[in-house]
């Protein structure tokens, strides 16, 4: 209650004032990642984030009397893949399950099957530019039901990996960058589809501030469902806490939500002390020997975003462009275009510029070969940039290939002197007034006439040569 009042009082201050910089931000992240398994963790139901509510359920994931969980082997396999991709040093040799006993309406059995004693993996790391963010642990557990207007049990029992970091992050921007990198890591190794907007990746953040090394109370920010929310909520919370301390107040340990502009106190599930853990008697420990032997660490490393960036740089990109492409999942496309003979930086600029402007998703009709051919034609001078831009939407549909489409549409640049003088003659013919005025000394009108020529040439003519032809005709 008090917190509510303080928050309200702080609103005005927060809008106008930045907190003093004596406080050092301390941010740790807990991510829940839905694993991309064909079944839920402990039953045969097929997971879906889009199916109508309560259509992907059975006695097991509804926690009906007499039902028993049977652990799928897919979840630990994907969890181990993610752990290797996160550079984890310690992988569990035995899969052990526990129950986290607590009452909540979204928990049909009254407990959650999780790993409390031995997580699947420990001691990983993620690199954000030159900063190393340590991963404390990765453990498996089952998802809870989703509370919308109805209680939807489609989500109940979906296999999750919970990934916990050390409190190594220092700003909202860094936290968001971490989440984006984590998303890339788990997506690229095939562990999860990791779509934030579908709840396949969910982010909780622990935020506190320290001053002169003194550890302060932290709050938990729950359900941040976009990178923007992660960044803004962290920064808001850091400022709120700093201001509270500055004004002599203290921070309460509590769970907060984010409404888009401020953090607010959520109804709590109860503090950690309220959870009672016990070994899961229905699931005997499972040796992971076989799964560990199956892991192809080299192959998994190759799937990581850091490996993708390395490949892009090796192909000739600067590291910033490489990061941009990797973040947008365009690196494989680009590398294929480079393999087809395209220049890396030019192709990347096209991909991040013109191509991205046209559509957020690459249609299947537009192939790396098309990009290579397009960039190649521009570089060879057979296609002007303007014609190339004109051709792009064509390539986004069923098409005949870059060369054939240039031919069919007559987009090729023409160097022929007759072609130039022909256009110039037409324009001079159609613009007697302008020509007369120009000749009378209004030299500004050359620009108008040149524009008309360019338009008539539809980008096929080299502007310099066309200009020369015009000047010659106007003499």
């Amino acid at each position, binding site marked *: 209650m008090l917190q509510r009042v303080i928050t309200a009082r702080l609103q005005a201050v927060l809008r106008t004032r930045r907190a003093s910089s004596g406080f050092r931000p301390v941010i740790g992240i807990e991510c829940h990642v839905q694993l991309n398994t064909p079944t839920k963790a402990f039953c045969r139901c097929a997971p879906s984030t889009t199916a109508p509510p309560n259509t992907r359920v059975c*006695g097991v994931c509804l*926690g*009906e*009397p*007499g*039902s*028993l*969980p*049977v*652990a799928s082997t897919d979840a630990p396999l994907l969890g181990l893949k993610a752990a290797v991709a996160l550079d984890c040093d310690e992988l569990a040799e035995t899969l052990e399950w526990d*129950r986290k*006993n607590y*009452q909540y*309406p979204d*928990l*049909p*059995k*009254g*407990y959650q099957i999780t790993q409390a004693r031995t997580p699947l993996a420990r001691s990983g790391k993620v690199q954000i530019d030159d900063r190393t963010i340590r991963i404390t642990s990765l453990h498996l557990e089952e998802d809870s039901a989703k509370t919308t207007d109805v209680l939807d049990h489609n989500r109940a029992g979906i296999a999750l990996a919970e990934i916990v970091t050390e409190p190594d992050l220092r700003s909202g921007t860094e936290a968001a960058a971490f989440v984006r990198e984590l998303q890339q890591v788990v997506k690229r190794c095939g562990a999860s589809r990791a779509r934030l907007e579908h709840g396949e990746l969910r982010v909780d953040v622990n935020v506190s501030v320290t001053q002169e090394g003194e550890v302060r109370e932290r709050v938990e920010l729950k359900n941040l469902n976009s990178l923007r929310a992660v960044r803004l909520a962290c920064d808001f919370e850091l400022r709120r806490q700093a201001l509270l301390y500055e004004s002599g107040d203290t921070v309460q340990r509590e769970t907060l939500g984010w409404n888009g502009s401020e953090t607010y106190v959520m109804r709590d599930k109860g503090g950690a002390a*309220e959870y*009672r*853990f*016990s070994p899961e*008697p*229905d*699931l*005997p420990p499972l040796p992971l020997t076989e799964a560990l032997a199956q892991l192809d660490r080299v192959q998994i490393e190759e799937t990581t975003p850091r490996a993708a960036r390395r490949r892009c740089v090796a192909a000739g990109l600067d590291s910033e462009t490489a990061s941009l492409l990797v973040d947008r999942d365009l690196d494989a496309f680009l590398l294929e275009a480079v393999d087809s003979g395209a220049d890396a930086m030019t192709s990347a600029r096209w991909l991040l510029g013109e191509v991205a402007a046209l559509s957020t998703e690459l249609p299947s009709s537009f192939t790396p070969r098309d990009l290579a051919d397009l960039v190649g034609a521009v570089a060879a001078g057979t296609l002007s940039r303007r014609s190339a831009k004109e051709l792009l939407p064509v390539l986004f549909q069923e098409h005949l290939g870059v060369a054939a489409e240039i031919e069919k549409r007559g987009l090729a640049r023409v160097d022929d002197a007759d072609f130039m003088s022909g256009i110039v003659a037409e324009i001079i013919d159609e613009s007697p007034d302008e020509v007369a005025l120009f000749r009378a000394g209004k030299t500004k009108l050359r620009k108008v006439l040149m524009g008309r020529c360019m338009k008539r040439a539809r980008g096929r003519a080299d502007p310099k040569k066309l200009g020369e032809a015009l000047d010659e005709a106007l003499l």
Partner: protein
Amino acid sequence: MALALAAAIRRGERTCLAVAEEAVRRARTSKLNAFARVDATATNRKLPDGPLRGVPVAVKDSICIKDETPTAGSRAVGSWKAREDAFAVARLREAGANVIGSTNCDEFGMGSTGETCQRGFTRHPLDLRRAPGGSSSGSAAAVASSIVPLALGSDTGGSIRLPAAWCGVVGVKPTYGRVSRRGLLAYCSSTDCVGVFARSVEDAAFALGLIAGHDDGDATSSQECVPDYLSMLSIPTNDRVASINVEVDDDIESVVAGASNALKADQCDALSPQFLRDCAAAYHVLAAAEAHSNLARYHVNHENPPFGAEVTRRVALGKRLLGERHAEGLYERAVDVRAQARARLDDVLSSVDVLMLPVAPTAAPKLNAPSVITKEARGSLARDLRDDLPRDYANDFLTAFASLAGLPALSVPFGRTSGGLPVGVQVVGKAFDEAAVLRTARRLELIRDDALSSPARRVLLSEDD
């Protein structure tokens, strides 16, 4: 009895219809309150052609029957109906058995007399003022009163063996993992076992063979292959038997001593009475902790589920032992006692094949009997837990250790008290060696029946038909 009845049906001497009608009629008119539900459709059911075709069976009401509510002796299950038959029920049906109804039990298995059942207690078939034993009270009473020759029960700390002993029938708790728990309403998942009641060891062996085996739907169910228990009964062996000395009523002691002498059993001193009681205490700690977790699902729709007093007490105890009382270390001590029990029994059973001991310190008590006060050694788990143990905790003294260790155990009737109440002998064996346990029980059964035919030993008279 089950196999004889099935043979008579096969020979055409009895019809499935007549047998089913009689069982349904007797289940309905019985004064024992053994049944929670009798299925009228049992008389016009098409039964598959199997070795038990037409044999009526009853099922403890904590075991799911498709489209029925397994009450588990509780109101908390509400009107929920099972989606499918429990594994063991399905196996019996495939063999042609006719499931005629479900039997009353202590609420969620939490009781040793049948009295915690919220549908009213079951009465003892030989003396209506006495308790039949629990928690599988209705199943034991239904078999003992010959309403059905076979019934399913579940045994978590003694819930099959105790009522079998008190009612005078054979009751088998298999090795943990031998029979799938799928469809059994969970109480203490790490010791819950589905098992059988029968009027002969042969019937019990045969029925166990039907319901045993691996189930993909229960991760704790074993891959170990299932031998033909029935044919293994008659294999001559040199099974080494050892008996455990415990403090029990004189009547019980003399019956078990008789059995021990008849089998020329050695003495086993490795398991002291205090250790067995500590096992029972450990069992109550673990069971309370797991019950608190397993029964939490009934809280999801009710803030306070309509549990009876004993279930409420045990669930609350489990919650405290894992929560605010965790620091007392009782849960860890119980885990430790379990590990010790496993290690000691492993050791003992490396030099003998089966252990023999009484099932309970007394024969069937009067309903609502006062609690038994025991003296526990200083520093023992049983003593430190004294205030948290159930009133009828003494009934679990001799059965809980086998549950903790996951070993196969059974009760076979072997005599009576001076007051005429049945006394059971408990036989405990190595993991997955049900064959030796059943074979020993069969030997006792033959010795008993031999004695019955000799006029000098009328004292062993049982009312077996």
